[in-house]
């Protein structure tokens, strides 16, 4: 195992895990509902970055599909919650 790529991957995993802990703290103690929704969106993006880093580490292409699915469901969930906070209901007649 040559090079500095494994060290960079370990560093990136630790940093992204710390970022996820920060987002989780904001999710738990956010004063308004918008803060919580924003923290949940951040948690989605951070987990996507972590999955992509794991895909680089293991050299597998399956992690790309997982990251794409996380992006899709994260957008749907965050947009639905933001729409609910804005209008009071998600799908309007």
């Amino acid at each position: 195992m040559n090079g500095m790529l494994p060290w960079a991957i370990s560093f990136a995993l630790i940093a992204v895990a710390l970022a996820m802990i920060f987002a989780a703290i904001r999710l738990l103690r956010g004063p308004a509902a918008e803060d919580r929704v924003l923290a949940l969106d951040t948690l989605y993006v951070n987990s996507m970055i972590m999955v992509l880093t794991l895909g680089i580490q293991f050299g597998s292409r399956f992690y790309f599909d997982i990251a794409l699915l996380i992006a899709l469901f994260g957008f749907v969930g965050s947009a639905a919650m933001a729409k609910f906070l804005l209008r009071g209901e998600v799908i309007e007649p």
Partner: protein
Amino acid sequence: MTMNEIPFWADLLGSLLLISGSLLTLIGSLGLLRLPNLFTRMHGITLGNTLGLGCVLLASILIASIHAGRFVFQEVLITLFMISTSPVTTILLMRSGIYRKRVEAGGKTAERQDSPNPG
């Protein structure tokens, strides 16, 4: 898994992209934790996370292309998807924050006047 076929420049560039991307993500999430109100938090987290995700996606494209021996461009899909969907969530959250702040300030009678065609 053929990790030792990576040339030196790809190793250096991939490590640099990974470290800068994870550091940007960490700084953005630290801004989410430390900044005082919703709008500054949204500013910090949007900048940090989008740039960090872009750097990690570039590193993933680079390493996967080196592994596969050809140009792998599937991560461009995630980039396009995030570029097109991240502003939608941000705009909805921002309008929701402004609206609820106005309602809290002006009582329950304050209605939306400036959005005749809300979406």
